[in-house]
C-alpha cells in the first residue's frame, strides 16, 4: 500500500520551502540568479506530490480507498490521543488530486510571472507552505491536523496579502483579515475540545461513525463550531468582506488562495461532516440559509464591481454560497462535484484576469430594467451592503475603546499599586530648569525625579536631597581644593543615586524592608 506514504504529500512542499528558505539565509539563491534554483525546487516538489497522489489514486481505483492511515502517535495524555493520521476516502482523494494539480500549475505560472521580483523566493516559500497546508486540511485523519493545516493556510494568506508590505493598504488589509479569521478558528478549536470531551476521540473516521451516541444539543454545538469555521474561511455571509480585501497580493496568489483553493476549504469541511450533518435537519437549514444569502450577496455585489479581481471574487463567493446551499439541501455529491469544477474554472479565470478586457469584445450586459429601479439595492451593492462598516461599528471601535480603558487601568491603577516607575528622564525641560534656578526651592525639585508608591516617594526625597547637595556644594563653591573633593563626592553620590534609581535596587530595598519588618 502506497497510502502509508501519504505523509509525503504535505511534507514534500514543506521540505522544499524549508530548503529554499535555508538557501536564502545562506545566500545561495538570492537575487535573479537564484531564481532558477528556487523554481526547480518548487516545481520538483509540487510535481512529485502530484505524481504521488496520482499513483495513490490509481491504487485506490484498483483496490479501493485506503480509508484511515495512522502514521504515528503524536501526543498522548491520559485518554487524549492525537495521532499523525490521514483519512483517505473518495472525497479527500479527489480533492487532493485537484489541489496538487492546481498548486503545480500555479507554481509553474508564477515562475515566469514573478521573474525579477525582489520577493521571488519569499513568494515561493509561502506558496509551497500553502499547498502543504491545503493537503493537510483535506487529508488530515483527525481534527487537530485539520486545524494545523487550517492555520498554516491562514498564515500563508496573511503573508501573501501583505506581499507589498511597504505599502499601508495591503498591510492593513492583511491584519484585518487575519483577525477576522480568528473568529472561525475559535469555532474550530471549540469543536475539537467538545469532541474530545463528548466523543473522546478526534479521529475523523471514528467521529463520523458514531453520531448517535451524542445528544442533539451536543451534536449541534460540535457542528456549530465547524460551521462557524467554514463560514469564515469560505467568506460566507456575514464574514464575506475579508475576501474582497485579500486581493492585494500577486495575481497567481489571488487565483490559488481566494479564487480556487482556500475559499473552498469551508465547503470541504461541511462535506467531511456529511454523516453528522445528515442527523441534523436544523443545522442543514441554517447552512442553506447562509449559502443562499451569500449567493445573493455575491451576485448583487458582483454586478456593480468595476475591477476585474473584485468582480471575480464576488462571483466566487456567490458560487461557494451555492455549494453551501446544495449541502443544506443535502445534495452532498453534487456539491462536491461542483466544488471541483468550480475550483478548476476559477484558477483558469483568475490567471486570465489581466487580459479579461482583451478577451471580450463588448461591454457587460446591463441589468434588466425592473432590477435597475431598485436604486437602494444598487447603492447597497456598491457599498457591499456595508458589512465592513457594520463590523467597524459593532466590533472594531468598541474593541479599541475597551483596549484604551484597559491601558488606562493599567497605567493609573496597576502601575501605581505595584509602584512601578513611570518612564522618566533626568532633566525634564529647560523650562523646568529655569524655574528651579529662579526659585531654588526644594519642593520644586520634585519634578526632577518622580517616583511612585511609598518607596518611590522615599527615593524621590533621597534623590532630591542629593541633587541639592550636588548643586550647592559643587556648582556654587568657589575654592579649588574643595571643588575637587566635593566633585569626587558628588560623582560617587551621583553613582549611588543612579543605582538607586534602577528597579533592581528598588527591589532589594523592598526586600530589606520586609526582612526588617519581619
Amino acid at each position: 500500500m502506497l497510502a502509508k506514504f501519504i505523509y509525503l504529500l504535505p511534507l514534500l512542499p514543506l521540505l522544499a520551502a524549508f530548503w529554499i528558505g535555508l538557501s536564502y539565509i545562506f545566500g545561495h539563491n538570492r537575487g535573479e540568479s537564484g531564481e532558477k534554483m528556487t523554481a526547480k525546487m518548487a516545481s520538483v516538489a509540487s510535481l512529485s506530490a502530484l505524481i504521488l497522489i496520482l499513483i495513490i489514486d490509481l491504487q485506490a481505483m484498483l483496490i479501493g480507498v485506503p480509508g484511515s492511515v495512522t502514521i504515528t502517535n503524536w501526543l498522548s495524555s491520559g485518554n487524549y490521543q492525537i495521532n499523525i493520521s490521514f483519512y483517505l476516502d473518495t472525497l479527500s482523494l479527489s480533492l487532493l488530486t485537484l489541489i496538487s494539480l492546481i498548486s503545480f500549475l500555479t507554481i509553474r505560472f508564477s515562475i515566469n510571472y514573478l521573474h525579477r521580483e525582489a520577493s521571488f523566493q519569499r513568494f515561493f516559500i509561502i506558496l509551497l507552505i500553502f499547498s502543504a497546508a491545503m493537503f493537510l486540511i483535506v487529508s488530515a485523519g483527525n481534527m487537530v491536523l485539520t486545524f494545523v493545516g487550517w492555520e498554516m493556510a491562514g498564515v500563508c494568506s496573511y503573508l501573501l496579502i501583505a506581499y507589498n508590505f511597504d505599502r499601508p493598504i495591503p498591510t492593513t488589509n492583511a491584519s484585518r483579515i487575519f483577525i477576522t479569521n480568528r473568529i472561525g478558528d475559535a469555532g474550530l478549536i471549540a469543536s475539537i475540545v467538545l469532541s474530545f470531551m463528548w466523543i473522546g476521540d478526534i479521529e475523523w473516521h471514528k467521529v463520523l461513525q458514531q453520531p448517535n451516541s451524542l445528544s442533539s444539543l451536543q451534536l449541534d454545538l460540535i457542528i456549530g463550531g465547524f460551521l462557524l469555521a467554514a463560514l469564515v474561511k469560505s467568506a460566507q455571509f456575514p464574514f464575506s468582506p475579508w475576501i474582497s480585501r485579500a486581493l492585494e497580493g500577486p495575481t497567481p496568489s489571488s487565483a490559488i488562495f481566494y479564487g480556487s483553493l482556500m475559499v473552498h476549504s469551508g465547503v470541504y469541511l461541511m462535506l467531511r461532516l456529511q454523516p453528522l450533518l445528515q442527523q441534523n435537519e436544523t443545522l442543514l437549514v441554517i447552512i442553506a440559509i447562509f449559502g443562499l444569502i451569500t449567493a445573493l450577496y455575491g451576485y448583487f455585489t458582483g454586478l456593480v464591481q468595476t475591477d476585474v479581481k473584485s468582480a471575480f471574487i464576488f462571483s466566487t463567493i456567490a458560487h461557494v454560497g451555492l455549494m453551501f446551499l446544495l449541502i443544506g439541501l443535502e445534495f452532498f455529491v453534487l456539491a462536491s462535484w461542483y466544488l471541483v469544477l468550480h475550483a478548476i474554472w476559477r484558477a483558469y479565470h483568475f490567471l486570465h484576469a489581466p487580459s479579461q478586457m482583451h478577451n471580450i469584445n463588448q461591454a457587460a450586459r446591463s441589468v434588466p430594467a425592473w432590477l435597475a429601479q431598485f436604486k437602494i439595492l444598487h447603492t447597497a451593492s456598491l457599498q457591499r451592503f456595508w458589512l465592513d462598516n457594520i463590523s467597524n461599528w459593532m466590533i472594531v471601535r468598541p474593541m479599541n475603546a475597551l483596549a484604551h480603558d484597559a491601558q488606562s487601568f493599567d497605567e493609573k491603577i496597576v502601575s501605581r499599586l505595584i509602584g512601578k516607575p513611570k518612564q522618566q528622564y533626568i532633566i525634564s525641560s529647560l523650562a523646568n530648569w529655569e524655574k528651579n534656578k529662579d526659585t531654588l526651592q526644594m519642593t520644586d525639585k520634585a519634578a526632577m525625579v518622580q517616583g511612585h508608591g511609598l518607596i518611590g516617594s522615599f527615593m524621590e526625597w533621597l534623590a532630591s536631597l542629593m541633587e541639592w547637595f550636588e548643586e550647592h556644594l559643587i556648582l556654587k563653591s568657589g575654592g579649588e581644593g574643595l571643588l575637587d573633593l566635593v566633585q569626587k563626592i558628588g560623582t560617587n553620590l551621583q553613582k549611588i543615586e543612579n543605582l538607586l534609581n534602577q528597579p533592581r535596587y528598588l527591589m532589594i530595598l523592598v526586600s530589606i524592608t520586609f526582612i526588617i519588618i519581619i
Partner: protein
Amino acid sequence: MSQKPNVKTVTSKDIRTQLRETVEHFEHFLPAQASIKDFVHHNTLHGFQHLPFAEAVKAAEQYNGASGFLEEKHFQKFYQQGRINSADLTHVLTADKDFNLEQIFYQNQARQISIKDLLLAMLIKPFKNLTDSQLTWQLEELNAQYCFQDDVSHNSRQTLLKSHQADGGEYSEPAAISRLWEACLEKLELEHFILHPEEMLDLSAEQINKILKMTASSEEENSTQHHGVHRKMQKQAAIELGELLAQVGKTITLRGLLIALTGEDILDEIRPLMIRYVSSYLDQGMASWHQDRDKGFYQSWRTNAHNDLIWLFETLPDWHDTLESLPDESIEVVIQELQYLDLPQNRWSHYLDCLVMELPGWSGMFLWRHNNPGYAGLKDIPVEMMDYLAVRLILERLFAKRLCAEQWQFDASLDMFRWYFRRHRSEFIVRYTLFNKRLPEYLTSQAQRQLERARHGNVETNSWQSLGDIFWTWLHTPAAGGNASYSIFDHAWKLFYLAQHLGMSGAMVRSLSTQQIDTVFSLLGQLDKDKRGFIWLQAYEHHYREQMLNMLVNNKNRGTWKTRSKRPEAQTVFCMDDREEAFRRHLEELNPAIETLGAAAHFNVFIDWKGVDDEQSSPLCPVVAVPAHEIHEKPAPNYLGAYTVHKARYDLRHKLKNLLHQESHRNLLSTAVLIALSAPASLMLLIGKIIFPLKTGQSIDKSIHDFESDIPTDLVANCDTPLDNPGPENRQIGFTDHEQADRVETLLRNMGLINEFAPLVVIFGHGSISQNNPHLAAYDCGACSGRHSGPNARTFAFAANRPEVRAILSERGITIPEDSWFIGAEHNTCDESIIWYDLEKVPQTLQTNLENLKKQIFQASLFSAHERCRRLASAPKKPSLQQAFDHIVGRSYDFTQARPELGHATNAIAFIGRRSLTQSAFLDRRGFLISYDPTTDPDGTIVERLLLANGPVGAGISLEYYFSTINNDIYGSGSKITHNVSGWFGVMDGTNSDLRTGLPRQMIEIHEAMRLQVVVEAKVELLTEIYSRQPALQELIGNGWILVCAIDPDTGDLSEFKIGEGFVPWQGEVSQLTVVEKSTDWYDGLEYPLAPALIAKKGEY
C-alpha cells in the same frame, strides 16, 4: 452661467471663472494617460514642457515629490563601469557657468587641487547626509575616525598617507585618519561627544546656558522674567501654527493639516468610497449595473449618497443634513465647501491642485474623460471635472468633521484651528513635533500616550505644557540639530569624507583658510540633489552622444544607398520604431541589394479603419489627429458565400469568448451551468498553456484559423463621389485619386524615394500581440494611436499600385516604373511574424522575386529574434537561430509572461537622414531611423515637416520611458504582478489603490534613462531657420526635452545644438571603431548595452 437667486452670493462671478480655469490648468500636472486600451506614449511631464527640462522636473517635484533624475547610485555605478567617465563630467561642468573649473582651490609644494578636482570628488562619491545616530554608528561601530572609508581609492589612500608622512606624521592609517578627523572638527570649531538620544536631555549647566543664550531674542536678554523658556516655546508654537495654516492651500489640504496634527489620514476612509463611486461612473464595460450616469457624476453620487447607510455605521451624523443643504450645481458646491473651510479665496485654486494630487491617477483619468467627451462610445455619460471636485470636497469635509469632533469637539474649518491652537499652544507643539519632526523613541511614546488620553478626554491641563517644554528643549539640544552654523554630522563629516577622497592630510585641512572652507561648503551647497542629477544625466548623455557621433564619422562614405546609382532588388519601408533597426540591419546583411527605409508607420495615410470582422471603426493615425476618411475591408468578390460562413463562425467564437470571460462572473445559476460545462476544457487549456505554451498556442491559432477559414479581402479605399468637406464629423469613405496621390507623394518625398523604384516595394506596418497583458497597446504602433499599422501599409500599397495614382504622380515628377509593385505587410514585433496583404494581386512576373524576398525577410526575422534573446534573462544563451525564434514565438504565446517583449526599452537616438549615415553600423536596437534625403529638399520643407511630426512622437516615447525608469513608483506603474485592471481604463495595485499610470516596471528594467538624441542630416543654416520659425520645436529643443545634432549632407561635418547658442561644431575626439563581419559577431552571448561597431561591407551599392 445661470446662478440660482437663492444661492448665497458672497462671491463674485470671477470666482467661477477662476475655478473653471483651475480645472483647465489641472492637465499641466495630472497624469494625462489615456484609457489603457488606447495607451499611447507621451511625455509624462507634458504639462511642464514649456519650461526648460531641469526646471520642469523641479516644478513637477513640487506637485508629486518625485525627483526628476535617476538615483545617484546608478550613475555612480555607470561611472565605475566606464559608461560615464571623468571626461564626460568635465565636459558638462565646463559648460556650466556656475563653476570655474581651472581655478586653484589648494596648493602647496607637492599638490595642487583645482575646483574641478573638488567637484569631481564631490560627484563621483556618494555624499550622504548622516543623521546623528548614523554618525555615532560610523564612529563607534565602524571606527571611521581611524580608518579610510571603504570607497576611497588606492591612489587617494597613498596620497593621503604620504602627505601625512611628509607633514611629520607616522605612516599609518589610524594616525593619519584620526589626525584628519581632528583637523576637520577643529577647522569647523566643533567638538564631538557621542550622545545617545536618552542622554540628550541630560544637559550640563553650561550647555543649558548656551542654549538659552542662543535662543534668546535681543529684548529678552536683559529681562529678568521667569519662565522665559515656556514663553519661547509658546512663541515658537504660534509661529509654527501660522506657518502650518499658511501651507493649507499651498502644499497641503485639510487632510494634510489633519495628518500634521493627529497623524490620522482621512484619505484612508475617503479613498475606497471615492474609488467605488468614480470607477463605477467611468466604467467602460466591466460592471453590469450603473446608476444615473446620464445625469453627471455629482447627481449620480447624490442619488447613491441619499440611499447610503454609511453615515449610520461610521457615525457621520451630518450626512443627511449636508446632503440636503447641497446646491444643485457642482461649482456652487465647490464654492460652498471652500467657504466652509474659511480658506482665503486667493488660495482656492492651489487648494484644488493639492486636492486632485492626493489621488493623481484617478483625478487624471477623470480629467482625461472630461477632456475626451464621448470616448469609447460612452456619449451619454457626461464627465465634468467640477463634479469630481465637488464630491471629493464634500467627503473631505464630512470625514474631517468627524475626526475633529473626536479630537477637539470643534468643526473642521481653518478659523477653528487657529482659534483653538492659539489657546492651546503646548498641545500644538506636542502634536506638530510628534508628527513632523524626528524625536527619540521615548519622547514619541510619551506624546502618543498623551494624545491617546486626550482623545478620551482624560488629560490633565498642565501635562500638555510640560510635554511641550520637553519637546522644545529636545529640539534645541545639540543632538537634535541645534542652531549652530556648522554641524558635525553634516559639515564635519562631509569635509572629512572629501579630504579622504582628495588625499588631503590633516595638516592640509588645517591649513585651509576660512575662505577655502567656505568654498567647499558653497560648492557642496550648489551641488544640490537636482543639480547633481542633471550633471550626471548630461554626462551620461554626453558619453553616449560621443560614441554615436564618432560612429557617424567612422561610417562616413561606408553606408550604401547614399545615391541610388542602380536599382535595388527590393525596397522595404519600416516604421521608424527602434525595434525595426535590428530587423533592417539583418536584412541588409543578408542581402545588401535590398534597400531599407523608415517612416512613421501611419505612412501619411490617416484613416478610420473598419476591418472585415470589426463592429466599429478605429482611428489609425497619430493621437493628435482625427481622421477624415474611412477605409473598409470587404470580402473579395468570389468569396461572399465563404464570408457568410466565416462571419458566422467568427461571431460564434466571440460569443463563446464573451460567455466564458464575462457571463461566467455576471450571473448566478446560468453561470453555474456554464462553469460546470467549461471546467474540463479549461483544465486542459490551463495545463497546455502553462506547460507547453508554444505548442498549445500554435495549435489554438491553427484551429481558430481552420474553423474560421479566413477569406481574401479587398479594400474599399476608392472614392468616386467625394464629399465637399470631409472631416471628423463628416467622414468620407475612401480617398479620391488625387487624395491617394497626395498621400503617396508625401511619403515618397519624405523618404527621398523618388527614383529607381525596385521591382518590389514592401511597406511594413507593425503591431504586437501578446497574452495576458493589460499594457498591450503600449507595444503597438505609436504613430497609429497604439494600434496596428498594417492597414495603413496596405492602403498605401493599394494606392501606389493604381495606374490612376501613378499617372498623377508622374505628372508631379515621380515616375514609378510599370514593373514596380507595392506590397503592404505587418510586422508583429512580439513574435516576429509577418502578415502579407494582397499577395494574390502581385503580377505573375514578380512571383520569383517575391518568393526570394519572403525567404530573406523570414531569415531576417530569425535574426531579429536572435538579437532580442540576448537581452532577455530567460532566453537561451547563445542560441541557434531556430532556438531563438522558438523562444521568441513561445514567449508571445506564453500567458505567464509579464515581459512578452521589451518594447521601446532600448530607445536612445533618432536619425533623420539617409540610411547611408548609419547603414552597416551596429546600433543595438536603440535608434529611430527616419528616412530623409536632404539632396531632394533644398528649401527644407520636408525636414521641417518631419521634425514637427516625428519630434514629439520620439520625444513622447523616450520621455515616457525616461520618467517611468527614474521613478517607477510615482511616474511609472510599479510591478505588473499585483496589477488589477479597473473599468478597462487603468490598473490599480490590488483593489483599493490610486490608478497607476506610466509604464510598469517590467517594461523599463533595461531602459537607460536619457533624453533622446536626434541627429538630422541637414545644413545647419537650414535647421537654424526652421528652429527660429517653429515654436513647437523651440519648446522641444530649446528647453532640452530632446537633444539635437546636425550632420552636413555634403561634408559630413557634425554640429551640436547648444541651448542659448544654437548649432556649434562638434569638437569630440574621433577614435577607430571595431569592424565585425556581421552583427552576431558583436553581440552574441552579451547581455549588456553595446557600443556601436561597424559591419564589414559586402559588395558595392
